[in-house]
């Protein structure tokens, strides 16, 4: 357990360092004194920017220092969680992030729920009927869903449910029904992979010696599966999902941009577009942390489900 937490903490540290370094390179690559002008514009408003104001900003923030010294300051700011102000809105990055994070968490949780509700029943069903029509049908469906990049899938669902049938709103965030389409898109794309993993590990469990023994000793099919099957199906599924959850984080970026869902991913793509470096650093950091967090949760659930991993 301790080992898991240390490993993930190390991952978080590496992630923060690489984000900070990349955004610092970005900062340095801005031409000339552009940075000072941009910050001045953010602080005093676009109309009040003058060479003098930019000079003052440049002096105050020590923008003339050597690159290494600036890099040191940049990392030190990060360590003290001083993420600065957005260059576009002028608001502190931390405030913007805390506003966005709630939306992202809602979307991610809803998507995982959809994925679990779809993948586990479908996977078990095709696992029990391996090789049959149902299995092949679900396989073809999964392959077709997987062949779509997640934003194409989102577009297709918008056409179907929002524009065609008019059941759900296209994009936005005010009412609960706005989360349905983004979560469905993301959940479907995750479930397309996950249901095959569930299916394969179900087939493996059903053909194993211990499962046969459980049936031979007279347990009813339900009881045999409940006591000896389910847990063994779930462990490889969870471990595999840990790898696949990178798709969740990447999907969040695309889906939030598509559905104008005001979360971290939406903020990230807009920050890239506007070259808003402090926001870019902040959103990339939170995305990275979310990734580490989800991985940690997967590790802990595997640890909790599988007693073998608890032995030294």
């Amino acid at each position, binding site marked *: 357990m301790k080992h898991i937490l240390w490993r993930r903490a190390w991952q978080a540290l590496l992630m923060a360092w690489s*984000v900070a370094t*990349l955004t610092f390179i970005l900062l340095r690559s801005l031409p000339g004194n552009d940075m000072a002008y941009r910050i001045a514009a953010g602080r005093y408003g676009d109309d009040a920017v003058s060479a003098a104001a930019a000079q003052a900003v440049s002096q105050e923030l020590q923008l003339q220092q050597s690159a290494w010294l600036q890099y040191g300051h940049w990392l030190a700011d990060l360590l003290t969680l001083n993420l600065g102000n957005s260059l576009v809105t002028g608001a502190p990055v931390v405030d913007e992030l805390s506003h966005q994070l709630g939306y992202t968490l809602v979307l991610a949780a809803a998507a995982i729920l959809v994925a679990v509700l779809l993948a586990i029943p479908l996977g078990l069903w095709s696992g029990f009927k391996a090789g049959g029509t149902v299995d092949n049908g679900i396989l073809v469906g999964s392959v*077709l869903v997987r062949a779509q*990049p997640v934003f*194409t899938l989102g*577009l297709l669902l918008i056409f179907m449910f929002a524009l065609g049938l008019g059941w759900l709103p296209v994009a936005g965030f005010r009412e609960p029904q706005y989360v349905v389409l983004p979560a469905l898109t993301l959940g479907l794309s995750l479930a397309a992979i996950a249901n095959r993993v569930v299916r394969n590990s179900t087939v493996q469990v059903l053909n194993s010696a211990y499962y046969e023994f459980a049936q031979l000793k007279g347990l009813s099919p339900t009881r045999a599966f409940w006591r000896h099957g389910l847990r063994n199906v779930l462990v490889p599924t969870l471990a595999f999902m840990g790898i696949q959850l990178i798709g969740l*984080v990447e999907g969040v*970026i*695309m889906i939030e941009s598509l559905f104008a869902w005001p979360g971290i991913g939406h903020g990230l*793509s807009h920050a890239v577009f506007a070259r808003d470096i402090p926001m870019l650093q902040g959103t990339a950091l939170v995305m990275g942390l979310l990734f580490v967090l989800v991985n940690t949760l997967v590790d802990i659930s595997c640890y909790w489900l599988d007693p073998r991993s608890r032995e030294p």
Partner: protein
Amino acid sequence: MMLSRKNPFSTWQCIGLALLLCLLIFAVGEWLLYHASPTAQHLSESFQTPNSAAPLGKDQFGRDMLARLAAALRLSFLLALLSVFSAAILGVSAGICAAWRGGWVDSLLNFIVNTVLALPGLVLVLLFAAIVPGSFAMLYVAISLVLWVEYFRLVRAVSKTVINGAPVQASRLFGFGRWYIVKRHIWPAIRANVLSLAAFGAATSIIMLSSVGFVYVGLKPPTAELGLMIVELFPYYSDAPWLLAQPLIVLALLVLGFQLLAGSRS
């Protein structure tokens, strides 16, 4: 010897290969035979439905869709080819190196890999895209950087067991050189997996390129790129759904082709 060997591809892989070949023939054939510019605008001909002069119609600026789709396909193929090749060469050689040398080389390479893996790939690509906006070279570097990690991890794990195995020990005792051992012992053990990873990697790189195009931070207009075309044609979905359908279908076929070619490894 070639004749006696069994067909190494499954039916699904053959379908994937055929799909990709069709797309490739379309992309290259257009370049050789069909002389229309993908960027030339004819505003009087915007939203022209398919006809004999423009078999796939014209877009909102009256640009020839056939020329644009083929140009976008060539771009996607080029990026996939370049980044998969670079990633495979880097990943395989680094993986063999780490397995062979062990010690600090292994630790250093593992550290680099863990740093890359700590961030989701798309976030890394977006950060790189922000450094030099609209640059194909930067996207290529970023996508290769994301992809090589997979090869490294696989090759390192497999070649470690191969190098410590008896056949390699015997070859070494016979005095065979390193290159011989890599060619005769390590490469056959990793070949199938590396090729499968390459096909998956091609699909991933195409999805990444279209994703950054779709959120409008990748290549800049008027470049014909699938993700960019989708987001540009989206506002006209009700006037010209057949226009928007074209890049959507091509992108799905392209990704499907590579995924089928990769086969099912899990």
